[in-house]
């Protein structure tokens, strides 16, 4: 979205191809943002407004790229409508891949009981729950969980069943979600299980400290080993590694900060345009160009690696700058 908008603003034509019926990607599923507790809906509405108004942007929702052939300058791209199966072709001078990310399937962690206990959910599912609570017009106090545990690094920094890398954004959105629970239900006890929290960004450290010190979320250093049922609730078992003592806590909901992984379709799409992907399926950058993967192929957002909203916006603008520079050279 950001790349298309900037390219159009520079005077070139952009075609925005989106598989879903609506623009916005994962951002649409989010209830709030860090580090300023802003509503992502406002950002989407603002950008969609500008894109819709622009005469240089064509929005093609519910449309998929089926194949592509490299031409002298650019690509001939085959598109297929997911509504009516209609196919058509499009000649473009450059592409920006922005397929986003998804969450790892955390049911491989039998010890956490995802898919077995209804109270265990992923962070993205919980985001939907937060949204529902916040938008509810009825009294939600009766819904208040007595306790919520949020577990970081589920599938991240795990060489045995998950991924060796750090998923980068979970520390921040976990703090955000924990804080939001406290805002909605001040009496609910909220626990975050962490190995270390990584808050390297402007206002990030202050954000996490605010959640701990002012919103009174309890941070426990240790990676839980087991979630088990107890009297209709969920018991989380871990070690408090700061004291070296085993701890347990009974809660009603367990939120898993599942690892960020590439969408399976990303590798396929990248292949169509000659872009490289890494061992996980994230798009790789080329040479010293962090948002370029091949000649005339740029990328932005979660398809390259886990990224927060502002980072994705920056990458989108950066990819647009690459495209605009290229088009000026072409002329």
């Amino acid at each position, binding site marked *: 979205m950001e790349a298309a908008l900037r390219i159009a603003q520079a005077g070139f034509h952009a075609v925005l191809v989106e598989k879903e019926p609506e623009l916005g990607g994962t951002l649409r599923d989010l209830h709030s943002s860090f580090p300023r507790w802003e509503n992502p809906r406002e950002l989407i509405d603002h950008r969609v407004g500008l894109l819709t108004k622009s005469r240089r942007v064509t929005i093609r929702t519910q449309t998929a790229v089926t194949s592509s052939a490299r031409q002298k300058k650019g690509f001939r791209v085959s598109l297929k409508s997911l509504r009516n199966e209609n196919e058509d072709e499009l000649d473009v001078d450059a592409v920006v891949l922005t397929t986003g990310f998804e969450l790892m399937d955390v049911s491989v962690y039998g010890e956490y009981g995802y898919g077995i206990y209804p109270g265990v959910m992923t962070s993205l599912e919980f985001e939907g729950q937060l949204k529902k609570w916040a938008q509810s017009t009825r009294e939600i106090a009766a819904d208040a969980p007595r306790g919520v545990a949020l577990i970081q690094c589920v599938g991240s920094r795990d060489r045995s069943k998950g991924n060796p890398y750090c998923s980068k954004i979970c520390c921040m959105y976990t703090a955000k979600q924990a804080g939001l629970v406290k805002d909605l239900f001040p009496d609910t*006890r909220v626990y975050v299980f962490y190995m270390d929290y990584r808050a390297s960004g402007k206002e990030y450290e202050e954000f996490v400290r605010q959640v701990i*010190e002012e919103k009174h979320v*309890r941070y*426990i250093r240790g990676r839980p080993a087991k979630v088990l049922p107890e009297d209709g609730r969920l018991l989380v078992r871990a070690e*408090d590694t*700061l*004291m070296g003592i085993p*701890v347990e806590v*009974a809660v009603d909901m367990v939120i898993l900060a599942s690892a960020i992984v590439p969408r399976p379709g990303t590798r396929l799409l990248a292949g169509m345009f000659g872009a490289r992907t890494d061992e996980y399926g994230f798009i790789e950058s080329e040479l010293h160009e962090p948002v370029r993967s091949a000649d005339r192929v740029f990328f932005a957002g979660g398809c390259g690696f886990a990224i927060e909203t502002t980072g994705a916006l920056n990458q989108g603008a950066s990819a647009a700058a690459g495209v605009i520079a290229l088009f000026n050279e072409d002329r």
Partner: protein
Amino acid sequence: MGPDFHTTIRLERLESPLKRELKDLFGIDVDTCLECGKCSGGCSNGHVFDYTPRKIVQLVKLGAEETLMKMDALWICLSCQLCLDRCPSGIDIPRILDYLRGKARMKRIPARRPAIGLFHELMIEQIRKTGRVSEVGLMLRFKAATGEYMKDAGIGVKLFLKGKLNPFSPSVKNVEEVRRLYDSASKRTKT
């Protein structure tokens, strides 16, 4: 009285009235602890503590008041203030320990090492009498009370040769003021 450290701790059942007291009485917020351990790393006596300063702050969070009042570190802490000086969050750990020593004393929980209580009593008594601590006088009284005259003699000689021990230690000018402090403090502890 806080959790027993020989069983698994149930977090949802934990309360820490101590944490609230420290906030209300002294404005000390243990939730600002970054868990970095700089306090313990700098602690002048940490190598002999059963709970280092970082762990002491954690124990406050856990509400382990009983453990805190019974721990050895409570009485072998020198109150040198290094932990406070090093702490990036400015947590006044010496003040926490002062408060805990007072509480332990009121509840008649003895120090684990037998002579420590005696040493503190002798020191407090000396300050009441002269308004200051005279190392030589205090050590002589302490040795007389324990009977272990020769135990630290070697280090005493070394300290003396370095000029760290002054055998002549006059009283402060206005001892009466010091006594008044003692009187008002003892009145307060009785109520």
